[in-house]
């Protein structure tokens, strides 16, 4: 670790945070957070050579951040979360690194009071960073994330709800309140001051932009942060997501318990798919229909003007938050069929999820889960062994497909 300032000016993207800064990246979800966290995690040694510390031991201290953001522990977050937040926050507070950084999209869930507590816990003076992507580009993965969290709304119904005229109700109201960039900037600005907020607008045409922007913000040479090759592919093809949606419906109808779903399906099945070295399913995006892209652009324009007016620092081009809606298809057909091979693969992965969970639930301490997105990254050797099994299974799937 060194206290000397960086000897290379990494980029003219932006200026670095002053020495001694405590930096809090709050997401929101679906804005490249896993890539950033993976990049920070695999670059720990190089970061520390430049006086930067990435707080925590894992890619993402999700449970700790979820606890901090909600001020309570949701049912599916483990009992260790409060202590984990204690450790994480005191690591940040007491850090002697030139810059210490903490990242979790879970912080975006915090209301004003929780945001204030988080900032206090971290030592009071905090630089807050938001990453932003075009709303239109986030829609499909946001819906998919809901299905991957046991929900079962139809895609088009969810989209319609998201863009129904205000006032919003239910999930849409929660989403805009917590993840809307305007609300995030306002909420956190009230706590740390707009001058201490940095908005990083991702460049849809430049995948390397995110890490480069953080190289610049952290005052380290460009290329210090390298991509995490183990970063997983979250997305399932539309037919597989539809099958999972119907599974969720049928699971619910049959009286299945939330906790069981989280532990068997989410923590096992979906985690295996996510972490498979090669995709189990041929990657395929879910399109956003044009009307929704247009509606999302309206939302993005609102964000742009409130960000412009707020006085926060902006890295990147705010116009990137608006997409060319004419490139979106007029309508998006919802698949009602899936290939028999993909169906068999998902069925076997669900079977294996239940098998692993129920044959180990007596033997291993219960593992817990976050609230809204993603899976904890706790190391678990047994799980690693199973992951290998699933990777081989993925190989079997590919062999069958080929």
């Amino acid at each position, binding site marked *: 670790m060194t206290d000397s300032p960086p000897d290379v000016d990494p980029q003219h993207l932006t200026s670095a945070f002053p020495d001694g800064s405590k930096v809090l990246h709050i997401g929101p979800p679906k804005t490249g957070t896993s890539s950033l966290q993976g990049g920070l995690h695999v670059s720990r040694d190089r970061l520390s050579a430049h006086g930067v510390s990435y707080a925590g031991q894992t890619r993402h201290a999700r449970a700790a951040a979820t606890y901090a953001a909600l001020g309570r522990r949701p049912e599916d977050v483990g009992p260790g979360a409060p202590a984990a937040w204690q450790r994480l926050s005191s690591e940040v507070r007491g850090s002697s690194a030139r810059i210490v950084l903490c990242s979790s999209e879970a912080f975006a869930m915090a209301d004003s009071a929780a945001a204030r507590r988080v900032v206090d816990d971290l030592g009071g003076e905090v630089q807050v960073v938001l990453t932003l992507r075009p709303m239109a580009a986030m829609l499909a993965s946001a819906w998919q994330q809901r299905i991957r969290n046991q929900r079962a709304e139809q895609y088009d119904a969810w989209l319609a709800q998201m863009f129904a005229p205000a006032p919003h109700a239910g999930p849409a109201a929660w989403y805009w309140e917590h993840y809307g960039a305007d609300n995030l900037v306002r909420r956190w600005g009230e706590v740390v001051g707009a001058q201490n907020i940095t908005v990083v607008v991702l460049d849809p045409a430049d995948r390397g932009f995110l890490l480069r922007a953080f190289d610049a913000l952290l005052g380290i040479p460009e290329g210090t942060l390298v991509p995490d090759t183990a970063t997983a592919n979250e997305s399932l093809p539309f037919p597989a997501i539809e099958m999972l949606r119907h599974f969720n419906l*049928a699971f619910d109808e049959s009286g299945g318990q939330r906790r069981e779903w989280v532990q*068997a399906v989410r923590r096992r099945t979906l985690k295996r798919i996510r972490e498979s070295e090669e995709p189990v399913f041929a990657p395929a995006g879910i399109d956003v229909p044009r009307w929704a892209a247009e509606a999302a652009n309206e939302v993005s324009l609102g964000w742009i003007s409130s960000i412009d007016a707020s006085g926060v620092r902006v890295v990147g081009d705010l116009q990137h938050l608006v997409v060319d809606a004419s490139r979106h298809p007029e309508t998006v057909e919802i698949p009602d*069929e899936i290939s028999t091979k993909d*169906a068999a*693969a998902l069925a076997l992965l669900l079977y294996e999820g239940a098998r692993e969970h*129920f044959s180990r639930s007596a033997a291993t301490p219960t593992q817990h889960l976050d609230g809204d997105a993603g899976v904890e990254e706790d190391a678990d050797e047994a799980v690693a062994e199973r992951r290998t*099994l699933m990777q081989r299974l993925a190989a079997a*799937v590919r062999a069958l497909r080929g």
Partner: protein
Amino acid sequence: MASARPFEAGSRILHIGPPKTATSSLQGAMHISREALAEHGVRYAGPTRHARSAATFAALGRVPAENSPRSGKVWRKLAEEIRTADERLVFASSEAFSMARAPEVDTIVRDVGGAPQIVITIRPLAVMLASSWQQRVRNEGVKGFEAWLRSLFAKDGSGVMRAWFWERYGLSQLIDRWGAAVGPENITVVVLDPSDRSMLLRSFDELLGLPADTLQPDTQNKNESLPYPEIEVLRHFNKLYTASGGDRVEWVDTVRRHALLRVRTAEEQVFQASRIDTPRWAARAANEVVEGWITVLETSGVRVLGDPTHMLVSPDSFPESVAVPRTVSTESAARLALLMYEAARDHFGGTEEVEDDNTAVDSGDDEPAPAASAQRRPKPVAARMRAALRVLRG
């Protein structure tokens, strides 16, 4: 059709299938008509619809790994019941008996007290093919229908079809083996009439000397067949399960005994079964086989009920070729996946029901699984993986 002459008083009667010849309908009717049968001096041997694992033990002379180790005891009890029954007639039925090879046939005949009457039911072979293949997939099979058919009808250098299927389903082979033990004059072949569903129970009313309509259909007899796309999902599931080194006994305990049983016993039919068409070439090949059977029926001296030509089909009514479904409805696939999931949950979570004889596994057209051994634990993950990779590369 003239009434069939009933079996003589004191006869012990074994119905040996083969599978896919309405055996469940017959066994269900026998089971629910026990009281009426008893009034007329007929005993249906065994306490359940179907003493499958007992008959499987008798036919194989051992317990396959997936069946209960108690099967031998259950068979000895059943055989004793047949041997010592003092009713006018005693009747036992299991399609598992059709698996017996010559030595086991002799043992079965001896165990039940010697000189039983043997009844074989038979349907058009071409019509039995699709359900036999489905049965195969329901027993961890991985071959597609067309490939399975090709292997079935493949001939060796001397022009003989060697698939194990024929030992069990081949009418001439069954007559050969059982005829050698009991004499062809003690074999009755009931050729079912495809256009008359009531013929099955009517024939058995007559054979057992019962008043007409004594045997009543068992309304609880559920359809366990799956639609073609769902069967394809199951087949690919088996393929992946096997390739990733899945354990056979585990598969039987979870998928076969739990998930697939629930398809059958579901309150509502979750899956709307659709017929799986057999391609015309296979219908023709089946007819050729049946021509041989008809000759055997005419020359072997067995008693025949029904019209042997009913075993033939008109190949023109079969499609030239049959497209294999490549997709399945997402909803239906999800329901199937939930059955699989719950099977693993209930098995490994320890909430499954205890095994009973009705859940014993029929090996279908398959070579039966090897005998149970002490080594019933799944192999370690590393060994499973090596095995899977060999399968994949091979």
